[in-house]
């Protein structure tokens, strides 16, 4: 190492927007001011995944893992750690033992990083650092040492399946496109990560953009395509910037463009921006959007692998799928196939969020159990509450309840219990979350995002939403449950694309596992979790109220009356059920129910 120390500062969106940028600048200033810039190098890296504890700074070579670092800590880190060589104990994740490295933290212990191998390790804005970690070696191998059939065989043997959610075998997809004769073929990267509560692809593009470019070029070589498009959400400005920068560098190094590495293979990549339409995650809709049109899906077959972008054969894979490929080529299919379960190989990245202690981005081998993810990696449920369910697959998925915490997570197992792998959103819910409310949230999303082309999705979704809304207001009937099921079946069978076909999944799944909650809303007119505002009332317990007026003062609609030191009352007609009085009362005098 040329420098004595390396300071790795997370430059992912969550950390950077949480004063991480100011922290980086402050560290830079302090290194200069304290004359330490010759000894230590400051490096911006991609996401460490431990977003809950951000901004994160890792100091090499001793691997000190600093969490929740603010710009105000820069002076101390430089003065103590860099100049004097003493880690700043109070900023370490494990405060009792100084110099505890990231590998020892429970959050990382059960993880295996293949897709995120370079995130938090290299500077995503430097192609040299990517190359130093064997970057573009896989592309070189594919161009000079492998035939296209060998590449496809390698992917097939590895058992790599699409990480966008459906799990289609990647090797097979490529084979279809390779075997079609056409004057023009395309490679497309789906980075239109629309699942609310998921950000795996964004972090990969931000933290390791070259891995996506390299894999796309490999696909180009394999199927005989010379142009690629990355379709990415406009809401991800940092990821777009990093990808643009990476494309520029790769062209400069002759790794994209005409005659790559002196061979006869030419391939170039352009970025196309999405514009906020969830349906564009569906491949035919995505292609329509790249073509500059409204993103409406069309019936398949023909599949894009045969007839895709501008009618030409097109390979579409998701960011996470792409990021796996260079490693499979370099390390071999046997290495990859040894990880995971019988039918699901490799790892899966999840965005672990919700009511969990350690929110963040995690990568685990397929076959890891939900219990390991939630309790070992995620550190359990926040505020000591009780686990209720984990939701995977976003608006197209379902819930996993306590009794299934120990099943190994893979494509088949999740499907068997009525959820799905999805793109990797994993939202943990506790006892305070109402399943009807959450289902309504997802339905509202899919209704809003339905493109409106086919009736089952357009009308079925809206009708189902209306029924759920009715139930959440205590106006539902038991017949409504039958109607929900019937409509859900119709949508599954008759919708044109994945959006409509999977939109009823949250309903089916919550009805299966939380039927009692539906009944409570319908029969008892109660929301057990206390979330549905129409079924909720706040009352003041006269015995406990001391008349401190705290509730009256915090009430935004001034519906709490009463004199000082006398019992207060809530005017139920005016109450908007915001719960602020409940939060404020120190005497437990307000009853929610």
């Amino acid at each position, binding site marked *: 190492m040329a420098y004595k120390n390396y300071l790795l500062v997370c430059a992912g969106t969550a950390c950077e927007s949480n004063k991480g940028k100011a922290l980086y600048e402050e560290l830079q200033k302090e290194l200069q001011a304290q004359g330490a810039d010759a000894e230590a190098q400051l490096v911006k890296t991609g996401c460490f995944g431990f977003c809950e504890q951000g901004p994160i700074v890792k100091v090499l070579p001793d691997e000190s893992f600093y969490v929740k670092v603010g710009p105000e800590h820069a002076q101390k880190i430089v003065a103590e750690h860099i100049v004097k060589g003493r880690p700043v104990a109070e900023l370490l994740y494990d405060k009792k033992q100084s110099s505890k490295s990231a590998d020892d933290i429970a959050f990382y212990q059960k993880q295996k990083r293949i897709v995120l191998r370079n995130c938090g390790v290299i500077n995503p804005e430097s192609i040299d650092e990517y190359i130093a970690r064997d970057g573009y070696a896989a592309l070189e191998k594919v161009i000079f040492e492998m035939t296209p059939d060998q590449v496809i065989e390698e992917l097939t043997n590895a058992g790599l399946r699409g990480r966008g959610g459906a799990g289609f075998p990647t090797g097979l997809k490529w084979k279809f496109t390779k075997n079609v004769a056409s004057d023009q073929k395309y490679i497309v990267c789906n980075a239109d990560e629309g699942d*609310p509560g998921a*950000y795996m692809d964004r972090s990969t593009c931000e933290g390791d953009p070259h891995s996506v470019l390299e894999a796309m070029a490999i696909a180009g070589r394999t199927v005989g395509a010379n142009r690629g498009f990355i379709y990415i959400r406009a*809401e991800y400005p940092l990821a777009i910037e990093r990808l643009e920068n990476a494309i520029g560098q790769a062209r400069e190094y002759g790794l994209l463009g005409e005659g790559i590495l002196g061979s006869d293979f030419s391939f170039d990549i352009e970025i196309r*921006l999405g514009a906020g339409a969830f349906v564009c995650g569906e491949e035919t809709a995505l292609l329509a959007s790249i073509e500059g049109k409204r993103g409406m899906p069309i019936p398949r077959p023909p599949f894009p692998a045969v007839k895709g972008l501008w009618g030409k054969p097109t390979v579409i894979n998701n960011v996470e799928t792409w990021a796996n490929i260079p490693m499979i080529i370099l390390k071999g299919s046997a290495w990859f196939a040894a990880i995971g379960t019988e039918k699901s190989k490799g790892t899966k990245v999840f965005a672990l969020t919700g009511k969990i202690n350690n929110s963040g981005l995690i990568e685990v081998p397929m076959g890891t159990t939900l219990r390991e993810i939630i309790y070992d990696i995620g550190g359990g449920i926040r505020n000591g509450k009780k686990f209720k369910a984990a939701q995977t697959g976003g608006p197209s998925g379902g819930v996993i309840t306590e009794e299934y915490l120990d099943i190994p997570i893979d494509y088949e197992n999740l499907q068997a219990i009525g959820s799905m792998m999805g793109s990797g959103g994993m*939202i943990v819910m506790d006892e305070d979350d109402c399943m009807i409310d959450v289902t309504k949230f997802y339905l509202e999303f899919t209704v809003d995002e339905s493109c409106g082309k086919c009736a089952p999705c357009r009308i079925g979704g809206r009708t189902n939403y209306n029924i759920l809304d009715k139930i959440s207001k205590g106006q539902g009937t038991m017949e409504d449950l039958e109607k929900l099921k019937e409509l859900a079946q119709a949508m599954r069978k008759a919708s044109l694309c994945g959006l409509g076909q999977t939109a009823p999944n949250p309903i089916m799944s919550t009805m299966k596992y939380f039927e009692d909650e539906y009944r409570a809303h319908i029969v008892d007119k109660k929301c057990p979790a206390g979330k549905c505002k129409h079924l909720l009332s706040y009352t003041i317990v006269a015995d406990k109220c001391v008349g401190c007026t705290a509730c009256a003062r915090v009430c935004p609609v001034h519906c709490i009356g009463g004199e000082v030191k006398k019992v207060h009352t809530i005017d139920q007609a005016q109450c908007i059920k915001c719960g602020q009085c409940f939060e404020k009362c120190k005497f437990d005098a307000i009853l929610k129910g």
Partner: protein
Amino acid sequence: MTATAAKEKMLTPEIEAFIEQWRDKPGNLIMVLHRVQGEFGYIPREAAFEVAHALDIPVAKIYGVITFYHFFKLSKPGRNQIAVCMGTACYLKGGQDLIDECERALGVGLNTVTEDGEFSVEAVRCIGCCGLAPVVTVNGEVFGSVTTKGMAKIIDQFEGK
């Protein structure tokens, strides 16, 4: 009055140069609309007509695209744009309460601009900072773990600035 002056163009020379650069690329419309919105904060009617002319695409088709995608706006947002994240993680942690608070504090509903043009509030899909949920952005600046009280403070912070 002599000859009327040529009607002033809405699109800046920079945007026109951008259009020129994209003119021959198939599927250019969405990229051009992004550029226009980047300049004005929304897509003014006049600009849409000029884009139609420049790219030789019917205005109806352009409006078809604009209205299909959530990202494109047809009316001018407030000087301070508040975006409350309504991704699942933020929703579970109280995103809706923050929207209610904004509506209450500013007296306007979602996607409406306050009378003085200072603020507009919108609900957005996941912005990918789930670790900081619930999240609000104002003019792109991210605020994490926002409470309803904190929301009021954030609004104060931007008011009149």
